């Protein structure tokens, strides 16, 4: 029995009582989303995902949200937690709410809500597909691997960290009002291939970035940079792509 080995004083911090306020929507019965509050007792070191799981498993089984790995890698559980886009599996309770306080959880914005915290991700992945998110190199491969120097790898180190959770794109005020904008996530993915020394479709991707729906829609609101759970300097990356388009066209 695992719990026999856990010493009693592990839980030195007392549990906290929080009211979890979730924006719920059932397309079959509701016309508009509405708030519902669930009182929860949890450890300050619990993640928001644990709290949501607790509510779903023991209080309200109809609560709907996406989660998969639960370790900040799959990018499924992006939601607006305490007014900011975060991953529920990476946000600790003590960082987003005080003892006795209210924790608000909403679906990410700018995408159609299908139920509760579940949104239709198709427009997001359409933008992702539009930048040709695959390695393109027509030249015959060398006997070994296609090598990169550490400096060349560093060039795309940040943008290759993206997990496509949509935290950035759905925090972008331009994406909220203008669905045809590719959005920060797609540009970060484009950056990952544009600045990959082994990829040969740089010009094609820069042309896509130069379209009406591309990088010039970015107004540097910096919401994406603040929202990114992987700490990617997204706005800087978008500016790098703008500069690359500029030099390509000159």
């Amino acid at each position, binding site marked *: 029995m695992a719990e026999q080995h856990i010493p009693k004083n592990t839980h030195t911090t007392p549990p906290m009582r929080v009211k979890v306020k979730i924006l719920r929507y059932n397309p079959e019965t509701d016309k508009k989303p509405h708030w519902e509050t669930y009182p929860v007792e949890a450890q300050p070191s619990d993640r928001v995902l644990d709290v949501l799981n607790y509510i779903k498993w023991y209080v309200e089984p109809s609560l709907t949200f996406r989660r998969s790995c639960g370790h900040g890698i799959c990018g499924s559980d992006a939601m607006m937690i305490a007014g900011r886009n975060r991953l529920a599996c990476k946000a600790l309770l003590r960082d987003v709410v005080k003892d006795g306080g209210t924790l608000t959880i909403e679906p990410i914005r700018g995408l159609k809500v299908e139920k509760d915290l579940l949104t239709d991700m198709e427009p997001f992945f359409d933008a992702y597909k539009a930048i*040709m998110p695959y390695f393109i190199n027509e030249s015959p491969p060398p006997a070994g691997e296609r090598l990169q120097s550490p400096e060349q790898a560093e060039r795309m180190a940040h943008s290759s960290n993206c997990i496509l959770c949509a935290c950035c794109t759905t925090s972008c*005020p*331009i994406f909220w*009002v*203008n669905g*045809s904008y590719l959005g920060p996530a797609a540009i970060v993915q484009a950056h990952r291939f544009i600045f990959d020394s082994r990829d040969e479709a740089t010009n094609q991707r820069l*042309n896509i970035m*130069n*379209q*009406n*729906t591309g990088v*010039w*829609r970015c*107004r540097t609101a910096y919401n994406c940079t603040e929202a990114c759970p992987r700490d990617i300097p997204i706005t800087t990356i978008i500016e790098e792509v*703008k500069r690359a*388009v*500029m030099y390509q*066209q000159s």
Partner: protein
Amino acid sequence: MIRARTFTDARAQAHSNAELNWWIFMRISGLILVFLVLGHIYMTFIQVSESDATYTAVVAKLQNPAWKFYDWTILALTMLHGVNGARYSIEDYVRSRPNRAWVKTIFYTISAVIFTLGTVGLFSI
């Protein structure tokens, strides 16, 4: 790549460098304007007191074509910079196509009138 099926798609996929050029213009004009406007503020409010800035004093100063050019550069750059910035916002936030056309037409007309009045006023002194 998906081929455009409608005129709207075709326009979305067509790339001219207009947006790129406006982006560069915004950066350069913004930088120039910082110095032009700071100089303007200095000359108007610090170098001379507000009570000294009478009509005759201003007219006398603007007899010099260099100052005319200086003021006209401020006028032209601020109008272009400001109008383009507002165009960004209109294109982002006015999503209905007919409304956008109306808003832009009215806005451009007013801006053109202001620019013309400023230019005429400056060069008829």
